């Protein structure tokens, strides 16, 4: 897996939201995409998933994502939307199985390989206990894990997740972050849009800090989460601490 963005621009409703972003990512990385509200994180992820048009070049293994055949792209890039949900009261195992749709040949039922991938995803996300339940009757934390399992079941080399831990309690936040790190460790890349800087610092190998559509910093968490960057981009003063178990505790606004 080799993702590369070269001079990427993207607009929303005529406003330029992403400006001249260039970066590259390789196998086995858990990348956190951070930045204040409106920095363009979601837009950048959606551009990579080919959900919105962009200028410049976004390539996966040397092929432009917009030029890829939709099913091939669906096998290569999995995407979990912010606040994703289900419109119908689907059974959990059925919902997770939807992640295999890009792999199914027309008129074919899921093969043993698909069933195995579904089982792996459900195991990884720890949703086997409620596999027969209706997804709409689950708690917020359980539902978030089911929807994540759906994205994991694609077994795509690149997984994009948009705010996967928003609105979850600390226990479930840690659970989701561990799942994502385990997935990234298996030779795959995860790019997660994150707001919780402590979680980003603790779990990610690399952070990309966006500010007003521009990459402000890109590197190891300790290189990116500096007092200067936090003040300039987030307009906050924070206590940064911990040895190994890093944390970022915002204490005051600076403007």
């Amino acid at each position, binding site marked *: 897996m080799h993702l590369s963005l070269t001079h990427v621009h993207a607009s929303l409703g005529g406003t330029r939201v992403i400006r001249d972003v260039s970066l590259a990512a390789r196998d086995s990385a858990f990348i956190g995409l951070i930045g204040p509200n409106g920095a363009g994180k979601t837009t950048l992820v*959606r551009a990579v*998933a*080919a*959900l919105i048009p962009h200028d410049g070049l976004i390539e996966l293994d040397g092929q432009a994502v917009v030029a890829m055949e*939709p*099913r091939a*792209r*669906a*096998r290569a*890039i*999995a*995407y*979990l*939307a912010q606040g*994703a*949900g*289900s*419109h*119908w*009261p*689907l*059974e959990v195992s*059925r*919902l997770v199985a*939807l*992640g295999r*749709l*890009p792999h*199914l040949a027309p008129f074919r039922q899921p093969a043993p390989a698909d069933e195995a991938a579904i089982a792996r995803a459900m195991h990884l996300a720890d949703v086997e206990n409620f596999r*027969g339940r*209706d997804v709409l*009757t689950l708690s917020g934390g359980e539902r978030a894990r089911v*929807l994540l399992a*759906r994205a994991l079941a*694609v077994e795509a080399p690149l997984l994009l997740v948009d705010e996967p831990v928003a609105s979850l309690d600390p226990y479930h936040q840690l659970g989701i972050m561990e799942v994502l790190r385990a997935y990234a460790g298996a030779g795959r890349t995860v790019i997660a849009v994150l707001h919780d800087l402590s979680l980003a610092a603790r779990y990610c190998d690399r952070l990309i800090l966006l500010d007003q559509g521009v990459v402000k910093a890109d590197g190891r968490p300790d290189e990116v989460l500096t007092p200067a960057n936090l003040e300039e981009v987030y307009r906050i003063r924070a206590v940064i601490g911990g040895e190994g178990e890093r944390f970022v505790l915002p204490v005051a606004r600076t403007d």
Partner: protein
Amino acid sequence: MTRPLNAWLVNLTLTALTLALLAASIYVGRGGEFLTDKFRTMVEIDRELAWLVLTEVRLPRALLGLLVGATLGLTGAGLQGLLRNPLAEPGLIGASSGAALGAVLVFYFGMAVGSAMLVPLGGIAGALAALATLYLLAGRNPSIVTIILAGVAISAFCGALTSLALNLSPSPYAALEIVFWMLGSLTDRSMAQVWFVLPFMFVGWLLVLSTARALDALSLGEDTASTLGFSRRSVTLRAIAGTGLAVGAAVSVTGVIGFVGLVVPHLMRSLVGPRPASLLLPSALAGAALVLAADLLVRLPTGGPEPKLGVVTALIGAPFFLWLILKTRREHP
């Protein structure tokens, strides 16, 4: 929620039920008698005439009941999946009111006497015109909201024009025909009409069925469906065009038959579960069974004018729908 039944079992049972109702529709005559005395006498006097009644009167009526019911059930389930809304029904996109208007205009201008096929032709033309208008209004990459709004506008406009035709109707005879058209009926149809609608319905069914997996993916929203490899534009166009073609063809020969496309997918959802793709076949079968059963019901009165099929389906459908709402409210207070 009760656990969904085995889909194969449901489909097999529904197929058997539909075939039984199809046979009943061919053999049961006015007053609900199984091969009426009148028919027996006819067989004794003139076998050929009796055979003609069976193949040219009863058979097309039964076949149209099957085809129209299957169309309404299938497209209702498909549209509810596409729009992710359990209140969607095939009439929503305007093709059926367009078809009704097209057929009514043929009556209005007194062309129906010229050829029996002009009415369904007018209906199909109306449905296609409604679809073309929808496409122009909703744009090349239509969103769900614009489709619904444009569909409602087209339906309202076609409905108004149909009422105007009734209003300005040149003769009481034409007015009566127009009213009958708006009520929906399977009586006095010919095999020629069956052959006429079949290709439109068949293409429509295939288009809707081709979206089955995409409808499943759409359960998780348009973005997720898109990243699962389904182009929103292609899925929407196939589902809407397929629905318009099949329902337009249905309305062009039987008039508007309401509530089947709305109620049947709900009923099937409680049997086989909510996954949109798994609802398509059972809804088609149950739609066919429901229309055939309702058409048997309208034959039961021995005397007087026959109640119109569309009236009966609405009379059964509306209270049933209320019951469904109350049931849902009990389950999810």
